[in-house]
């Protein structure tokens, strides 16, 4: 594999890094008023990376770059596209939130760009060292983003909590990685797989468990979810939207590749862990959300709940299950970003956020369009059939049933009924309660565009996408199993 080809395959990462460095200099040498222009430039760079990434799908996929450190295959292209789309959406809606608080700075866009680089490396890593480097780049910029509104105590608290617990999780992953390396003698995924297929000792099992525990933290699966509500509530809302979408996609993709390729021969070793994490996430995510008054906390529990459904697809450990994971992830990204953009639009004239159930009661009279969009998003998150969210749940449960995990699917479906309670409560408060607080102010066009696109995707029209989405996801899942 020639050097130039390696550079070509990692073109999206290299391009984004260069864009980040140039914009960093631009931020340093200009005043704060340039922050908006820098954000626009960052969005442009991400669009470029997205197009470049999609163009890689046409010519020669399945190629390893830098002597097997990274791999460009259908799976990584799929996950990377989702990551870039989510990052673009979060960058588009971020400026007004920070400008309301006088905290908008160009570094925000720069950190998002470097975060996107890290996530791109995470999803295409086929070497334990690449995995760790990508994870750290993404995590480190996430910690800073969480406390970006530094004058806000809650934001600082969120950043500190995320940093300490994230550092612990990185340590756990690193310990697991060192055990895996010690027992297999190699850091490359294929090498680890070959070594584990030949001999899988108890020590290696410990390594696998540690790696999975650390990754479960990164995807916020129960029992490693405790940080999620606090961090999601405290972080600035555009950053929360970002945390719930892009890094989650990257972490899930990394977990899936990890489970399918290096640990693919030992499915029974990790399956029980994933099954437990899936069921526990669904139940805790559903029950924990019931008592919440704060909308961001509620959506945090909702994201824990959704990770549970995603893990059901992984627990099946079949190409159909992985394909289900990817379909679910794509729908989930649009639902989450839509919900958080709607939250961002819920603000008074003075720029204060309408953050609790009391604030949004009777929203259907004060802002009907927003209320109907939220209704569609909540019903979709609950998985109610005419909406696209149902399809995601359907494919993962189908994969679980096909893999003879009927009990898992049954418990999952039962728990999703509990989850439907608070999504419907959301709708009840908006449509049937008397208005109490201020009406939300007019939102800019950019927010409406992002929200409109998300609602369009999750509306019944989204089913037009299913054949295409299904075939792309199948190809991506097949890439993992073909490699193994």
């Amino acid at each position, binding site marked *: 594999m020639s050097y130039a080809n*390696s550079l070509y395959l990692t073109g999206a990462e290299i391009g984004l890094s260069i864009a980040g460095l140039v914009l960093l200099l631009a931020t340093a040498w200009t005043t704060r008023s340039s922050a908006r222009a820098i954000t626009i430039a960052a969005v442009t760079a991400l669009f470029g990376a997205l197009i470049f990434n999609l163009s890689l799908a046409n010519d020669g996929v399945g190629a390893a770059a830098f002597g097997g450190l990274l791999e460009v295959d259908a799976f990584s292209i799929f996950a990377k596209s989702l990551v870039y789309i989510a990052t673009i959406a979060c960058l588009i809606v971020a400026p007004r939130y920070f400008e309301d608080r006088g905290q908008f700075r160009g*570094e925000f866009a720069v*950190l998002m760009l*470097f975060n996107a680089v890290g996530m791109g490396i995470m999803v295409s890593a086929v070497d334990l*060292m690449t995995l760790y*480097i*990508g994870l*750290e780049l993404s995590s*480190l910029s996430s910690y*800073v983003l969480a406390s970006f509104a530094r004058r806000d105590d809650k934001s600082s608290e969120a950043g500190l909590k995320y940093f300490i617990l994230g550092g612990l999780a990185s340590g756990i992953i690193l310990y697991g990685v060192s055990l895996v390396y010690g027992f297999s003698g190699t850091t490359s995924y294929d090498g680890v797989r070959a070594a584990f297929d030949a001999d899988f000792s108890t020590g290696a099992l410990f390594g696998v468990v540690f790696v999975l525990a650390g990754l479960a933290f990164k995807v916020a699966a129960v029992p490693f979810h405790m940080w999620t509500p606090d961090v999601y509530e405290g972080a600035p809302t555009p950053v929360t939207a970002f945390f719930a979408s892009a890094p989650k996609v990257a972490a899930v993709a990394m977990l899936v590749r990890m489970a399918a390729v290096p640990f693919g021969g030992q499915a029974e070793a990790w399956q029980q862990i994933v099954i437990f994490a899936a069921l526990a996430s669904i139940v805790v995510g559903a029950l924990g959300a019931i008592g919440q008054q704060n909308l961001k906390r509620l959506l945090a529990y909702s994201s824990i709940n959704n990770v549970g459904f995603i893990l059901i697809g992984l627990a099946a450990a079949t190409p159909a299950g992985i394909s289900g994971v990817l379909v679910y992830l794509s729908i989930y990204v649009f639902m989450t970003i839509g919900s958080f953009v709607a939250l961002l639009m819920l603000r008074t004239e003075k720029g204060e956020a309408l953050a609790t159930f009391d604030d949004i009661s009777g929203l259907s009279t004060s802002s009907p369009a927003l209320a109907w969009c939220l209704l569609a998003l909540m019903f979709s998150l609950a998985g109610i059939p005419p909406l696209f969210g149902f399809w995601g749940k359907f494919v993962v449960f189908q994969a679980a049933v096909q893999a003879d995990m009927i009990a898992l699917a049954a418990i999952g479906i039962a728990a999703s009924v509990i989850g439907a309670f608070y999504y419907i409560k959301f709708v009840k408060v908006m449509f049937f309660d008397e208005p109490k607080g201020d009406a939300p102010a007019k939102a800019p066009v950019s927010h409406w565009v992002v929200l409109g696109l998300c609602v369009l995707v999750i509306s019944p029209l989204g089913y037009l996408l299913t054949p295409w989405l299904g075939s792309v996801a199948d190809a991506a899942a097949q890439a993992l199993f073909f490699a193994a």
Partner: protein
Amino acid sequence: MIQTIAFYMFAIIMIASAVMVITARNPVHSVLWLILAFFNAAGLMVLVGAEFIAMLLVIVYVGAVAVLFLFVVMMLDIDVAAMRAGFIRNFPLGIVVALILLAELVLGIGAYNVGAINLGTPPAGDASVVAESNTAAIGALLYSKYVFLFEIAGIILLVAMIGAIVLTHRPSKSKRGQQDIGKQVRRNPDEATVMKQPEVGKGVEL
């Protein structure tokens, strides 16, 4: 033989000082024990022929991290007079520690000159060592096979730096005004001084 003696010496002292790190009452002592533990770990690395890692341990951990710890510890409220009180009493102990370190140094250098401990022969399939010294070998790998990861690690450090600045930097605007050196230099006697003829019984009006 000298290697075995050196190994047990480094190992025992390292474990003993690690125990002292967590049992010492005085945090400054804890940090000093930690430094001793690092030094002994470096000695062990020298024994297995990994002199580059040994130097890294000394430079990074002893040099930077331990000094940083010491700064943090110094900010804690510690009674310095109480610490000094035992100086004469503990003087012999200090001499003993110094002698141990000297002996370690001699043993370590002696053992290194004899050659690395033989840790067994590597499997036949393993890649051969690229260069003679392990500093060169690590460099050869780092700048060829792992160059991508090396560059990304650089970006991680940059992100850490951006983060530190974003979270702590405040535009400097002191309430008392700022010193403008150009303005100070431009001052001349004509505009800086005025002649006044105060009337008798009244003060100067400026």
